[in-house]
């Protein structure tokens, strides 16, 4: 009994000691650039292979860089708001949400393809929805069940919803409430399964899965590709220059722009992001997204 009691005291002391040690790590954080990304396409690959990217940035910027994986769109925004993430790969909508919650934050870089991004509408072959080529054709989705991807996705929810609006199709005209599958891949699978007649998703995911032969084309087909819009981009916390020295943000942008597919490591990074190259961008490119999001109530 006495020994047991001593053990309890020893454990308490050990816990306090561990607590004290934990405190020491505190201030190194401000010298580390913490980056993250929304879990959009193959987040598992990125999360488990991020060291290529952090090594590259660390090498170019001369600061230590950490990758902090995120499992949900909204927690990426929240962690940007709380300051846990310094630089985040956001979608159009989440980027706008993040900038609204952190005044002074800036869109710094995007991919070559992000200025002309598209969503794809898919439908079951047996649903009676025929392929169409103009936004107006979206009215043919009326009286069919339909699913978006994640609630916060730009290409899987915001822009498809906005184009449906443009065509004059109200969500009430669908059969039942629209679903939110949770991700682009889940949208494909739920339409293949027949749970929903149709769905909308990121063109990149669709093209990648098609190329890999992972889509059952006897069940589902593409019926429409939307007009282009701005989507993914890197958003940086304000005052990065103050923390890491003058001109840091400019060097950051330069580092992204210098990613070159002829270098094998850099090519792998570009491949994770399905990008040919990164280019600079600025907040005004996302004004359209912001007003669409405001219209659909996704930002207040």
């Amino acid at each position: 009994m006495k020994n047991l009691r001593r053990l309890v005291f020893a454990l308490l002391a050990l816990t306090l000691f561990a607590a004290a040690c934990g405190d020491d790590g505190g201030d190194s954080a401000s010298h580390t650039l913490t980056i993250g990304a929304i879990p959009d396409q193959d987040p598992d690959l990125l999360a488990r292979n991020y060291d290529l990217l952090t090594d590259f940035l660390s090498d170019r910027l001369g600061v230590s860089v950490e990758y902090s994986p995120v499992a949900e769109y909204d927690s990426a925004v929240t962690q940007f708001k709380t300051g846990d993430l310094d630089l985040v790969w956001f979608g159009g909508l989440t980027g706008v949400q993040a900038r609204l919650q952190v005044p002074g934050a800036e869109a710094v870089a995007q991919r070559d393809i992000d200025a002309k991004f598209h969503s794809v509408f898919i439908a079951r072959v047996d649903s009676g929805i025929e392929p169409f080529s103009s936004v107006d054709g979206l009215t043919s989705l009326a009286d069919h069940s339909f699913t978006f991807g994640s609630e916060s996705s730009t290409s899987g929810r915001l822009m498809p919803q906005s184009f449906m609006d443009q065509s004059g199709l109200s969500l009430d005209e669908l059969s039942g409430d629209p679903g939110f599958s949770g991700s682009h891949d889940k949208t494909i699978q739920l339409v293949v399964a027949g749970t929903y007649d149709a769905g909308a998703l990121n063109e990149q995911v669709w093209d990648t899965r098609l190329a890999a032969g992972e889509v059952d084309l006897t069940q589902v087909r593409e019926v429409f590709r939307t007009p282009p819009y701005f989507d993914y981009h890197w958003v940086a916390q304000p005052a990065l220059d103050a923390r890491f020295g003058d001109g840091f943000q400019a060097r950051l942008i330069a580092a992204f722009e210098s990613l070159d597919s002829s270098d094998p490591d850099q090519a792998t990074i570009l491949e994770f992001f399905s990008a040919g190259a990164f280019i600079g961008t600025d907040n005004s490119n996302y004004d359209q997204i912001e007003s669409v999001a405001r219209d659909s109530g996704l930002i207040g």
Partner: protein
Amino acid sequence: MTSSPAHALPVPLRRRRDRWVWALVVLVAVLWSISRAGVSGVLNQRGFGQLSSFFRAAIQPELSGDLLRIALDESITTVSYALLGTVLSIGIGLVGGVFMAESIWSPITRRWSLSRRFGWRSTRALMAIPRSIHEVVWGLLLINVLGNDPWVAVIAIGIPFGSVTAKVFSEFLDEVHNDSYKALRIGGASRLQALLFGSMPEASGDLLSYGFYRLECAIRSAAVLGVIGAGGLGFQLQLSFTSLDYNEMWTFLYALIILSGLADWWSSSVRRRHASPNTQVAEGAGVARQPGRDRFLSWSAISAGLAVPLSWWWLDLSPSNLWSARTQRLFGDLVTDSFPPTITNGFGSLFTASVDTVAMAVLAIAVAFLPATGLAFVIARRSHDQSTDGSASLASEGARFVTRLFLLTLRAIPPPVWAFLTLFVLFPGIWPGAVALGIYNAGVMARLQAEVVENHDDSKGRALEAAGVPRVSRIAYATAPQLAGRFSAIGMYRWEVAIRETVVVGVVGAAGLGRVVDEQVVRFDYDGLTSTLIALMIVTIAADQISAGLRRSLR
């Protein structure tokens, strides 16, 4: 207190009548839920192929070295969250349980004053609030205050579990015969002192054993919490789930199954030993000083104790983060963002969603109850089973093992994953959510019911067995009547839990408060979220009252 002399019926008969009324209430509730969920056009037969491809992937999980290393690391993280969360919940439970105990509120003499009764009731009601909110929602709120910090998961588990533990511990304290507490009070000890010397020593063993049960629940919770980015196995599962890499998912699911299995085994062994300790009192000099202690129990307590600082170190917890300037600022922001509550889509839609949530939970338990009961009898280990001849017991041993593994799988796969899987074969609405929660809860219920079967006194059943009555009849005539009450109590308890769990199956679409919460979180509409959470609290507390009433009538 229990009997009112004015009533003419003798007590046992009145209880029976209570039971029939409750049975009717339950039946009506189930029928109403079925009609609300609809019966036609629910099944989507085209989706079975998709469903089977998920289960086919089970035979070839991704076994690359890198992924296995990740699975191992994250398993340790998950266990650390669960352990520290449980320790926190026991701390909260100890303190909270004392304040919720009837004995500490009751005066020394027999009369309760109105203000005391009010004080006791309102303390109990207040302590019910934290447990009416699911861990995931706590996690969502905490991440706004603490950011990306391991404390998020620890506290998100600790708070609601602490509230449940406090309730259970206060019941332990009140169940311990009150006399030694009263004797100390009358001898001049303060309430707290009398509780420390009078009731706590008797109740603390029960609390410790209950703590091991919570640890087992906490492993599953930690996995679900991974979804909101708290790290651990659930987080990796979520990443693979987003891109629907089934083979990778199974790697993490197997890790979860192993962890849950170990936690289940540890927790049930501790509880079995606690109920009947295996104390081999050594003869000789030691007897006078060292009374018999179960080695296994001591070993369990010590290793759980040792694991606490290790988990702390592994997660790199820093207490100063809990009250840093940033935390205070963010907490202020969250409060400003969340108040005053507003109603996003009108009161009507919130009400409809609340009603759907109740229906979903009712159906979940209705779906789970019978299969769980049947399987509970398969896995229950009865002492007299061993006496049958070798070949039969080998077969039943095998069936038991396979069934246990099956049930373990049911409860190791987090409800959001079940929800997505059921969506392949059921059209969106209440049903897929109910079935998903039903499958998960069947896994939990069968285990709880099996423990009841193992612990109940089966002398009648054995008498019938001796008379040559076949097994099924034996269960129907001897076992079932004895167990029906306890089983129903478990069902009611899981119904309460299922109501809370509806928030994590929002993916099934168009039904329940889970969908509302998802949408509000995405819009960062915290004013609206506050109202939704209040609605959820009201529903949960009402369910709590109803289930308490039913359980009372079953006693």
